[in-house]
């Protein structure tokens, strides 16, 4: 007995250590990630900026963009523009020196509200003041973050539990009918199945309520800006569809628990599992269909595992040697032999699609933590299958008790894994950040009958920019560019370039000082006496 105890203690210590470590992983933005801002977070600017600008990894709908000065006064923003991934607004002219806080809220493409803030400074650097403003903002940052993580955990746990327990009940039913034919202890098992159904019934109701609470919390995040149109757009978004599907699925499962039709539990299970597919990062990943299929497998396997472990625990607690249900336990063990590796592989594949195995990213660290806990549980499960279950056939109370303890440990591990998952899905996978360019760039083409030119501005933000030009099909001797911003009265700023390589031109540090529609006059000398001209417009 002492050896298994020590093993338990070791495993517990491992799980606790992992949890402590994951607690230190910083929470990132959910779903839509902010790629860059102007001014940058923590920037110290010598001159007052004329606008603020945010660039996300996916299109977002801005619900709030606020700039507060050091006294907490809101600065009026004009010309708020939301162009897909980029949002911008004009600041009042010549804002005084000081620290400014920009806070924003937006709805991402999958209708999850996201929010955040950043700080910039005009004039002399004052790190202490920046720290103070940041800390003040940090304290009041999204009060609904933690409630949502908790509720999400409850929903995962509840949904998988209901689906898993009902599946387990089927397994048990199949077994008991065989046993019933043999006429052994049918009544005991019949009462056992009733209790499973009661648990599933309660869990389904709880999950249904939590789903509604989560929906309410999401709406609450939008609160000051919520109107009928936004409500409709959230309801019609993938998130809204998923929520609706889950409510229907849970309703069908509740009905199944109350003795509904024979198909009810399978249809309800499919609906509940399916309700998770359109939510989260599967839809926005590179291979939505494949990712959703993997996610479905992953969820079905997890449900089977959770429901099965719980069912095992109930059976073992009820029975004494010679363990009449050992056949059921064996059967669970057999199914788990392919179901659990399958679900792990599906999960790893999914994470691979998201490019999630990245240690430098919070998502990657959650993922590794999850995998480690799961592998520990697989180790325990293998121990059960190859040692304890055969031993159980021989009878013996000690074996039964040990098996029950291990099963409990696995259950706890699984619940923790689900908790980790509810954090994991709150992170945007690194793959989705990488899939969009880290730096926005403006690229424009000009073409003439004999050839063309493509011009690229990096990083395409107010400030110093690099301009790259590639000329195709025409000999290019010299390139003249004149940058002007008529709307701000900025006269043409000329740059003359010779090709670095045939057809390749580049110029650094072009001071495109202000945001707006820049006019670029292009003069390309193609022979001593001939040039091609054109106009390019670029919005910074």
């Amino acid at each position, binding site marked *: 007995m002492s050896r298994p105890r020590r093993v338990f203690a070791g495993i517990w210590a491992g799980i606790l250590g992992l949890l402590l470590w994951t607690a230190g992983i910083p929470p990132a933005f959910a779903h839509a990630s902010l790629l860059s801002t102007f001014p940058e977070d923590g920037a110290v600017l010598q001159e007052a900026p004329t606008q603020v600008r945010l660039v996300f990894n996916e299109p977002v709908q801005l619900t709030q963009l606020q700039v507060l000065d050091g006294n907490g006064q809101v600065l009026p923003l004009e010309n708020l523009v939301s162009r897909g991934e980029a949002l911008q607004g004009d600041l009042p002219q010549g804002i005084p020196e000081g620290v400014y806080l920009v806070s924003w809220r937006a709805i991402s493409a999958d209708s999850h509200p996201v929010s955040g803030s950043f700080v910039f400074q005009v004039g002399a650097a004052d790190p202490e003041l920046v720290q103070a403003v940041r800390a003040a903002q940090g304290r009041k940052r999204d009060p609904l973050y933690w409630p949502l993580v908790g509720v999400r955990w409850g929903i995962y746990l509840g949904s998988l539990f209901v689906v898993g327990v009902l599946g387990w009940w089927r397994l048990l039913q199949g077994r008991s009918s065989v046993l019933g034919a043999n006429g052994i202890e049918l009544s005991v098992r019949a009462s056992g199945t009733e209790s499973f159904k009661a648990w599933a019934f309660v869990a389904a109701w709880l999950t249904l309520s939590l789903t509604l609470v989560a929906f309410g919390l999401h709406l609450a995040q939008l609160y000051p800006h919520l109107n009928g149109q936004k409500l409709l757009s959230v309801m019609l978004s993938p998130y809204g569809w998923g929520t609706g599907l889950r409510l229907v699925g849970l309703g069908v499962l509740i009905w199944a628990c109350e003795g509904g039709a024979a198909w009810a539990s399978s249809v309800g299970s499919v609906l509940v599992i399916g309700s998770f597919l359109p939510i989260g990062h599967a839809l926005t990943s590179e291979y939505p269909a494949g990712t959703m299929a993997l996610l479905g497998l992953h969820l079905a396997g997890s449900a089977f595992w959770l429901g099965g472990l719980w069912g095992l625990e109930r059976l073992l607690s009820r029975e004494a040697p010679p363990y009449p249900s050992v056949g059921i336990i064996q059967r669970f063990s057999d199914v788990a032999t392919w179901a659990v590796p399958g679900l792990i592989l599906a999960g790893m594949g999914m994470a691979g699609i998201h490019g999630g195995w990245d240690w430098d990213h919070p998502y990657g660290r959650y993922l590794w933590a999850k995998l480690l806990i799961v592998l520990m549980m697989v180790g325990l499960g293998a121990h059960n299958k190859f040692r304890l279950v055969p031993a159980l056939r021989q009878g013996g109370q000690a074996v039964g008790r040990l098996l029950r303890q291990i099963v409990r440990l696995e259950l706890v591990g699984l619940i923790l894994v689900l908790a980790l998952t509810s954090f994991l899905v709150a992170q945007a996978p690194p793959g989705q950040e990488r899939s969009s360019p880290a730096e926005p760039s403006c690229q424009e083409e000009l073409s003439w009958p004999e050839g063309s030119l493509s011009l690229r501005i990096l990083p395409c933000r107010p400030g110093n920019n690099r301009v790259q030009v590639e000329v195709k099909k025409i000999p290019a001797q010299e390139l003249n560019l004149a940058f002007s911003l008529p709307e701000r009265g900025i006269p043409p700023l000329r740059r003359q370039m010779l090709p670095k390589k045939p057809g390749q031109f580049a110029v650094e540090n072009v001071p495109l000082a202000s945001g707006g529609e820049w006019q670029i006059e292009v003069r390309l000398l193609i022979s001593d006496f001939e*040039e091609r001209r054109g106009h390019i417009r670029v919005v910074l």
Partner: protein
Amino acid sequence: MGLQSYLALARKSLLALGMSFLPLSSAWAHVTVHPQEAPAGSYTKLTFRVPHGCDGSPTKRLRVQIPEGFVSVKPMVHPLWKIETVKRPLKTPYESHGKMITETVAEVIWSGGSLPDGLMDEFSISAKLPDRPGEVIPIPVIQECEKGVHRWIQVAQPGEDPKSLPEPAPLLKLTGGGGGQSHGHGTR
């Protein structure tokens, strides 16, 4: 709107006003050809007027590209400047004074002199103009200075205001009813 923003507005308006005069002020300072109109098919003396250098730098070299269709091109003697011509073969050779003319002048180059920014000069050629009445022909000129270069080679695109071009090519308009036969020379 505070006083400051009014001031900023005033500053901007003044700048915009100033800028709107910029093209006007430079219009008289281009390299131009004289006369600006000549009878199509005629022998004409064309004079290129160079009114200034390149941002204060003296002019060292002037290159004039002879447009297609101009024949019998002869640069006028210009003291202190070296005169070169670049030839190109004619697509359709012609006979003149019993000789087959197979090539023509493609470019005339004046070099070796120095024309200070504060002075002006004129460089002349004579040529037989093409017999295409009504046509406006750009004659591209490159003005090379000690520092910098002006390429008077720009031609307005359809829909473009010729006055908006910073470095337009000198334009020569061919008028109708030329004295093509006046010298009894062969036509093309």
